[in-house]
């Protein structure tokens, strides 16, 4: 019997202890032990379960553990049940292992912060919610985890709530993802109404039986679910929240906005692939959204000055890759990239955190420099992570995952030239911006003194993640280089394999070569621009005409914020202003005013004058006698 419930139970217990007793855990040491320990235990359990699963796979390649029936209303009986198959196994491992490392890192990073135990409480709750999300057997439970991570994201982005800007960023994240969540909820309603169940496997089976490929219902359901995924994974058009979400502490950005929460959208599409396969049009949209996002976010990343915003746009771009893979039917490739991305992106964020700590919380890269010699460990891991992100050939995990992805984009039936080209150009741009970051921050002349050297709690996770960023790719060696598709083999037991339409081995070699070339070309260009010459980008206003405006445009994230502000926010505010006096409330206020008016009218008779009262009495007598006499 697989005790799946223990995996999310440990972080939940950690959250409860910290939330209820955090005030009494006076020494931060205790809060850290609880916070890190709970996720660490979860990781160990997950590893044990993974070993058991891989060594002796259960029947049907999946195992379900039902805890209890959550709701029982008529035909609607979602159960609290956990479902473990290769897909969720990979996700659980990523979440717990990377999560544990990040928790350990935060033990030192957040030292001295007055909200220390609160931080770990929120982080633990987040991990629990995310685990529920990936382990959920039922879409309703998945939605619970979905909302839970959204809530924790809000709490953690706005962690330093004293500054209203942080609160605004947290609200923005919540509201934008809420748009997606609403679409997803509608999708769930549609699925339940048409299929009668929200159990994932059941629903997919029934959908395949009931809906013909390309039917309107399938398209609608898939599109609505895609809406939720787009919001959570910060794809265009709902990507505006992620750059601003960097207002939260760096470990938060590492965990939530690089490794786990933003990948929930990718996971959702992969998990409900059965429905998406019934709507090829939607899958095409997924791929196109991914491709567009790769390029747009990459261009924006190229112009940013804030170290975390560069990484934020990079995340958006890499998520675009995953969506591209999903769209062309390379489900396993997308998850593979998800895993490697979580390694090197988390590492990049954690390294950036170490840099920020060392530079008095300065985040503008043009105010840093020459950190290579003074933060050697950080520099090394950063280069490894950056290389992995750029897809440096052969020795980095990123190379293998991106290569698999690009090959699928070219070769699969739903793929094609343009999608592949977008991925290739994106790889070039990725390489360019990440090495721009590395060269500017670590090479050159030192600009500011070192403030805080990272201790072992920061260095250990960095090193572990660096190792993973290298070896993580070796589980999936393509046919051209040795043919060891361990990962794909594993996931093909849960997800359908891509249908390759064109291209053979020779094509694969060629494409690999091109991908490697793109990656190296980016590094070279970055070297030329940012090491050899004095840094031109420090003063973008000195760019000639269109260059300056384009730079500005990309810096502002293609001005989506401006667009949304004009189209949604302003009209809504105008409406709110019109209704400022609250029409409905006026009605009730009117009733009250009427009562007061009536009172004032009747009050005239209480004038204290004796003769008035006598006259009233007389009048009354007249009326009574008349009534009695005439009846």
């Amino acid at each position, binding site marked *: 019997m697989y005790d799946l419930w223990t995996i999310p139970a440990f972080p939940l217990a950690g959250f409860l202890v910290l939330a209820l007793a955090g005030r009494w855990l006076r020494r931060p040491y205790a809060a850290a032990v609880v916070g890190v320990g709970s996720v660490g235990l979860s990781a160990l359990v997950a590893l044990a379960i993974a070993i058991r699963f891989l060594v002796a796979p259960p029947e049907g390649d999946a195992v379900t553990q039902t805890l209890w029936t959550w709701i029982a209303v008529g035909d609607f009986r979602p159960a609290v049940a956990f479902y473990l198959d290769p897909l969720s196994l990979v996700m659980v491992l990523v979440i717990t292992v990377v999560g544990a490392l990040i928790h350990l890192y935060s033990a030192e990073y957040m030292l001295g912060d007055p909200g220390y135990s609160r931080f770990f409480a929120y982080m633990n709750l987040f991990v629990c919610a995310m685990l529920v999300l990936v382990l959920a057997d039922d879409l309703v439970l998945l939605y619970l985890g979905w909302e839970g991570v959204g809530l924790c994201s809000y709490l953690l982005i706005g962690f330093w709530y004293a500054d209203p800007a942080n609160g605004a960023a947290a609200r923005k994240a919540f509201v934008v993802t809420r748009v997606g969540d609403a679409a997803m909820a509608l999708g769930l309603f549609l699925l339940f109404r048409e299929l009668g169940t929200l159990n994932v496997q059941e629903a997919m089976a029934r959908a395949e039986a009931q809906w013909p490929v390309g039917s309107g219902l399938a398209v609608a359901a898939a599109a609505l679910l895609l809406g939720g995924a787009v919001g959570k994974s910060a794809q265009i058009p709902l990507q505006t929240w992620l750059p601003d979400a960097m207002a939260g502490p760096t470990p938060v950005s590492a965990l939530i906005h690089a490794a786990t929460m933003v990948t929930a959208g990718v996971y959702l599409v992969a998990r409900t692939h059965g429905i998406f396969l019934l709507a090829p049009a939607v899958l095409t949209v997924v791929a196109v959204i991914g491709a567009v996002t790769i390029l747009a976010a990459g261009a924006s990343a190229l112009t940013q000055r804030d170290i975390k915003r560069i990484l934020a746009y990079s995340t958006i771009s890499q998520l675009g890759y995953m969506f591209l893979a999903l769209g062309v039917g390379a489900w396993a490739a997308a998850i593979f990239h998800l895993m490697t991305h979580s390694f090197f992106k988390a590492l990049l964020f954690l390294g950036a955190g170490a840099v920020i700590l060392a530079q008095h919380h300065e985040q503008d890269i043009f105010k840093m420099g020459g950190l290579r010699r003074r933060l050697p460990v950080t520099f090394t891991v950063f280069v490894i992570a950056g290389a992995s992100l750029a897809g440096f050939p052969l020795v980095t995990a990123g190379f293998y995952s991106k290569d698999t992805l690009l090959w699928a984009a070219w070769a699969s039936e739903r793929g094609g030239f343009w999608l592949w080209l977008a991925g290739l150009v994106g790889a070039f741009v990725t390489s360019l911006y990440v090495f721009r970051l590395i060269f500017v921050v670590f090479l050159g002349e030192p600009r500011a003194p070192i403030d805080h050297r990272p201790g072992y709690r920061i260095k250990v996770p960095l090193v572990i993640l660096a190792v993973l960023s290298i070896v993580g790719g070796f589980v999936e060696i393509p046919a051209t280089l040795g043919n060891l598709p361990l990962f794909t083999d594993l996931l093909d037991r849960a997800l359908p394999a891509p249908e390759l339409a064109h291209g053979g081995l020779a094509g694969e070699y060629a494409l690999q070569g091109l991908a490697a070339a793109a990656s190296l070309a980016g590094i070279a260009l970055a070297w030329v621009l940012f090491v050899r010459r004095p840094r031109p980008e420090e003063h973008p206003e000195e760019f000639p005409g269109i260059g300056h405006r384009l730079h500005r445009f990309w810096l502002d994230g293609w001005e989506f914020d401006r667009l949304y502000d004009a189209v949604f926010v302003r009209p809504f505010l105008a409406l709110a202003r019109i209704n400022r006096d609250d029409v409905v409330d006026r009605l009730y206020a009117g009733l009250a005013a009427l009562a007061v008016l009536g009172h004032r009218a009747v*009050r005239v008779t*209480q*004038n*204290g*004058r*004796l*003769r008035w009262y*006598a*006259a009233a009495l*007389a009048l009354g007598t007249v009326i009574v006698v008349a009534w009695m006499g005439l009846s």
Partner: protein
Amino acid sequence: MTGIQLEQVLVLAAVLFVLGLKGLLVRRNVLFMLISIEIMLNAAGLAFVAAGARWGQADGQVFFLFILTMAAAEVSVGLALVLQLHQQFKTLDADAAAELRD
């Protein structure tokens, strides 16, 4: 033994009552208002006595007795109040004491 009709006496009582009422409504001096009230009480008593005499019973007269008693008590208290009013407000204007209002 007399040819007086009940209705005639009652009409007389009504006339007297109405006159008292008119006096109450017209006059502003509290003293006159009290006198008008006495007029009305007297008229009511007349009606009672007449009604009692119609049936030849003593009840009407008894009731007039009670009215009389009540009028006496009321007059004493009322005049005491008039004296107080005069002392406080230096006037007998009924409208002077109009502060018991909203």
